[in-house]
């Protein structure tokens, strides 16, 4: 009988969702267009890094350097004058400005070791680091090749064979697609249960349920299973059709294993949604709370920047967030092709967190109903 209640109440939730066409449109958007756009927008490694060159030498070697920068890594370099350089960097038009001094070629051949100045806009952290390295090696390469015609140089015959595994071209779009799918999952799971609960209270329907022979456990479980199924189905479809299909991101591991992890993460998030709803007094408060929870979850779970670079305290706190484990699991399974043997600690962590959140939210929910 209890199972029947959980089933019937869940069906009610699903029917309610069907009545909100705007919500359905948003769900579809979140799992298709939003993921697709974000993935396609992500620059592949260094992409179109804006660079300008002040060529005060106008020699064969300087023009060699100028022609060495071309798309897609860099924009076709603009030749500018020195005064222009400052204003362009101030306005953020260029991230890099390379200044080749007068008489560069002459000094080079004379072995006077002239200095090329590279200005980097360090407020653009992501490009500043990678781009700086690239430019350094491009300029060195061109200069050395030029010099090789004139003299030979002793060097050690040790090569470094660098290879990126799992994503050989370091295509950021692959990773971005998964990260966005995960943030959509998080956002939707919390909103669907949490906001729906507040709505029930604002409309007085929750009180009505309480005079019927149903328990808070049944009410909460019904909300969780029904909304979890929606989110799980949406994420599964997005993974197969949008990420694997449309974006042709190669998936190395088992989709089933990923979905199991996703299910656990969704359960944890829906519980979190219920918890937030019991804390928030009204919908605007819930909206703000949502932002306050969502943003850290998204930014600090390791999906945007690597976890190991975060302060230890944040790492420790985020270890309690289901997202962190889910991001680890998603990376391991989808990209590294890891199996159950590898990701079981994440699954176990998700299971424990979901169970704790469920128990905690249920307690809050019971109090909330009183």
């Amino acid at each position, binding site marked *: 009988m209890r199972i029947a209640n959980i089933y*019937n109440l869940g*069906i009610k939730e699903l*029917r309610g969702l069907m009545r909100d066409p*705007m919500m359905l449109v948003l769900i579809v958007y979140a799992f298709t267009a939003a993921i697709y*756009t974000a993935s*396609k*927008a*992500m*620059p592949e*490694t260094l992409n*179109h*890094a*804006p660079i300008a060159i002040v060529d005060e030498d106008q020699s064969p070697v300087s023009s060699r350097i100028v022609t060495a920068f071309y798309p897609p890594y860099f924009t076709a370099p603009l030749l500018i004058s020195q005064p222009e350089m400052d204003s362009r960097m101030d306005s*953020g038009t260029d991230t890099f400005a390379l200044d080749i001094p007068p008489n560069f070629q002459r000094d*080079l051949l004379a072995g006077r070791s*002239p*200095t*090329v*100045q*590279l*200005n*980097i806009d*360090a*407020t*653009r952290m992501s490009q500043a*680091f990678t781009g700086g390295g690239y430019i350094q090696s491009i*300029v060195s390469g061109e*200069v050395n090749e030029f010099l090789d015609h004139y003299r030979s*140089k002793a060097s*050690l015959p040790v*090569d470094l064979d*660098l290879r990126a*595994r*799992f994503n050989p071209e*370091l295509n950021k779009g692959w990773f971005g697609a998964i990260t966005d799918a995960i943030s959509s999952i998080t956002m*939707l799971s919390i*909103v669907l249960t949490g*906001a729906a609960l507040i*709505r029930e209270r*604002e409309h*007085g329907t929750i*009180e009505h349920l*309480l005079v019927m*022979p149903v328990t808070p456990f049944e009410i909460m479980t019904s909300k969780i299973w029904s909304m979890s199924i929606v989110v799980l189905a949406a994420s599964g479809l997005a993974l197969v059709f949008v990420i694997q299909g449309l974006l042709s991101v190669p998936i190395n591991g088992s989709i089933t294993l990923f979905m199991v992890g996703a299910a656990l993460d969704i359960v944890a998030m829906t519980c979190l949604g219920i918890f937030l709803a019991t804390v928030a*007094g*009204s919908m*605007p*408060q819930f*909206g*703000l*709370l949502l932002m*306050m929870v969502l*943003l850290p979850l*998204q930014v*600090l779970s390791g999906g945007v920047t*690597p976890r190991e*670079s975060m302060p230890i305290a*944040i790492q420790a706190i985020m270890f309690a967030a289901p997202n962190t484990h889910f991001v680890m699991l998603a990376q*391991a399974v989808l990209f*590294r092709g890891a199996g159950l043997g590898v990701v079981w600690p994440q699954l176990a962590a998700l299971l424990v967190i979901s169970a704790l959140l469920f128990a905690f939210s249920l307690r809050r929910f019971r109090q909330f109903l009183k």
Partner: protein
Amino acid sequence: MNARPDAGVALPSGCVARLENVGHAYGKVRALDAITLDFPAGRMVGLIGPDGVGKSSLLSLIAGARTIQQGHVEVLGGDMADLGHRQSAYPRIAYMPQGLGKNLYPTLSVFDNIDFFGRLFGHDRRERERRIGELLKRTGLAPFADRQAGKLSGGMKQKLGLCCALIHDPDLLILDEPTTGVDPLSRRQFWELIGEIRKGREGMSVIIATAYMEEAARFDWLVAMDAGRVLASGTPADLLERTGAPDLDATFIALLPPEKRDSHEAVVIPPRPAGADGEPAIEAEHLTMRFSDFTAVDDVSFRIGRGEIFGFLGSNGCGKTTTMKMLTGLLEPSEGKARLFGREIDPRHIEVRRRVGYMSQGFSLYSELTVRQNLELHARLFGMADAAVPPRVEEVAQQFGLADSVDTLPEALPLGIRQRLSLAVAMIHSPEILILDEPTSGVDPVARDGFWRILADLSRKRNVTIFVSTHFMNEAERCDRISLMHAGRVLVSDTPAAIVKSRSAATLEEAFVGYLEEATGTQAETAGTRPVPEVPEAPASRPGRSGTGRSFDLRRMFAYTRREALELLRDPIRATLATVGSLILMFVVGYGINMDVENLSFAVLDRDGTTISRDYVLQIAGSRYFTEKAPITDYADLDRRMENGELSLAIEIPPGFGRDVARGRHVTVGAWIDGAMPTRAETVQGYVSGMHAGWLTQKARELYGDAATASAFQLDIRYRYNPDVRSLDAIVPAVIPMLLLLIPAMLAVLSVVREKELGSIINFYVTPVTRLEFLIGKQIPYVALAMLNFGLLTGFAIFLFGVPLTGSLPAFAAAALLYVTATTAMGLFLSTFMSSQIAAIFGTALITMIPATQYSGMIDPVSSLQGVGAFIGRIYPTTYFVTISRGVFSKALSFADLSGAFVPLLVAIPVLLGLGAAFLKKQAR
């Protein structure tokens, strides 16, 4: 029926409203069908008719709250389809929609609510204070001027609604069931009030829809409606004469089409069989309920026998509902005991709930489920067998006249039919006790009689105990016993006849009012002898009307600003969350987004094991970027540890490495990077290449001497604006724009969608406020809040994070003002598409968070983005504010340098507000 049915009756001079061939439909449901009707001016006109015949639709069309779909509506001498006329007519019309306090703002005080309407109609301060004082005095609300509207009783809410409607001296007052759910005493006071006001304003026309026939009998002119058509119209005497019926109730039934009329028969409740009183079904002993500041129920005791119909009467807010909630277990009494079937109520006891049916006062069923789905859901939840559900649903739908609307959503149904649905739901599982809280509020007389026949049947034939509260005296008379309640106490409890007798009154109503007046000591005031304050001669020149014709009026705009600000102040949690929340977020994101990649884990598969190979490894292990893990044993180990993400980098040194290096033989070191996270992989790539090169130079120097390694040229790298390359300095200036988007936009969206969902949007529909006044008025408080946030965030950035602000602070503040105006405008624009708060929250999070974090140059510059993302980045205001923020914080820039980024912000504001105004609807559909 298209011809005017009252053709024979002389019309009074002039019409306040004329309807010609007016039709209205909600989807497939026709609410009004070719109505042609004249409303006489200067009269009290009543609309009577069953639920769902289109009375409310008709009134909202006259008020200009709905778009006219078909036909011609002329009000106050102009066409209501014409925007120009509507704009000039709004200040002369007052509209009070159906539902208790539907157009009031529950968190605002009584005074502030009326004040808001006064401002909307452009009265100045003195004028407002005079009018409010007077209205409050007349309605007896003066002592409650500071109480929140949401905490008023139903009758007081209706009086407040009336005050709000009357503040601007309307020529036409439209009241949609103003006394539904209001107790008899308050109802009497309400009509006295209207009478007095009409005395003071001779020309005022009043159009009222009502379910109370005894009220309708006092009106000047009546229109009887059924099924979207007009049955008859004329004076009450006229109608009585035409039908030859003794009273209006009977008249109304006589006017109905035959098939409906035939189904009606008078309610006869057989007496209770003697000796039926066995074990009581419901017992209350000294029930007391205290809330923090007042006692809602004070020492209430009663016993209700099985099969008895027990009535509960009392003024609004007297504790009836609270008592009922204690009996259902929804509230736990502070003191006293309640027993059902001799067993004390235990909220955890599920079995008892199966035997009880409860109907709460407000409609509390699922508006997203159809009538049938609601019935089925409740039948199943009460544990009915699957096979039994459909026939039972069918039966109940027939019984309650819901058969025609089983597949309709409750929202599309009129109040009366929704009430029937609630009742049907309460009875679906054939409970032994029914607890019904004002079940017939807003239900028409025919349906009410049908309803009482069902109750009689249940009580007498099935021995169901019924505990019912009501405001209808004819219903109270049908009960076996009734209790009168006031201010939490039971005044008297007896059979209706005995109560009438005890007061030696003519009717139950008289007895009831007598008891109440005795209890409140207000006799002198209510009997019409209350000193009528000098009726304000509506000044010949209406001072407040001056601004109403203007297309943009600052006073109206500020009325919304003030109201929104007051609401924000009354909800300190929201304001605190918005400010403290953004500081916390800045803290978390500022420290969390760290572009300095450090502590990367790596391990070595050293197949050489010589000093040279260890020297090579030391080069990496010694740097602060890498942390060395246990050595890799073989390829399987390498694969496993990279798969589970333990290693970001694996180095393989081939056998004979040391020997080959020493002999100058060509040798290759293998390095695998975890590419699952591309940004990190790139950084690792850079680090490893650099260290490899460094090691080579060092070795070459050892082997060949310094000369060999003198480089051909120097590359002098200058990290501008952030010489230490502090991640915080780069991220914090970008976090401020993000937070000033997310939170203000969310608040702005909800401020509008909330009004839509809770119903107060109707004030925007029927007052002279224009779209821009409404939007900008609502926007201002959120802009102010966002600017406060801006100040806090900037201060935090400078003093706590130690990010130096090198540029012009005034330029930054000016840009912030433009930016938050744009972000709140964006929220308002989004709000025009959303009708539910859930969709609004999700939609706003979706539409703001991704572009703000990914397309606005916070991490990757906009110039490097591709496709749609790049397009969004270029038109998104955040992009430009990020440029300004970074420019001011790190690049020491001022107004002149940043002018290029100001322009898009300046453009965004009118575009977003214009779009918002264009998509916002000024009338309901």
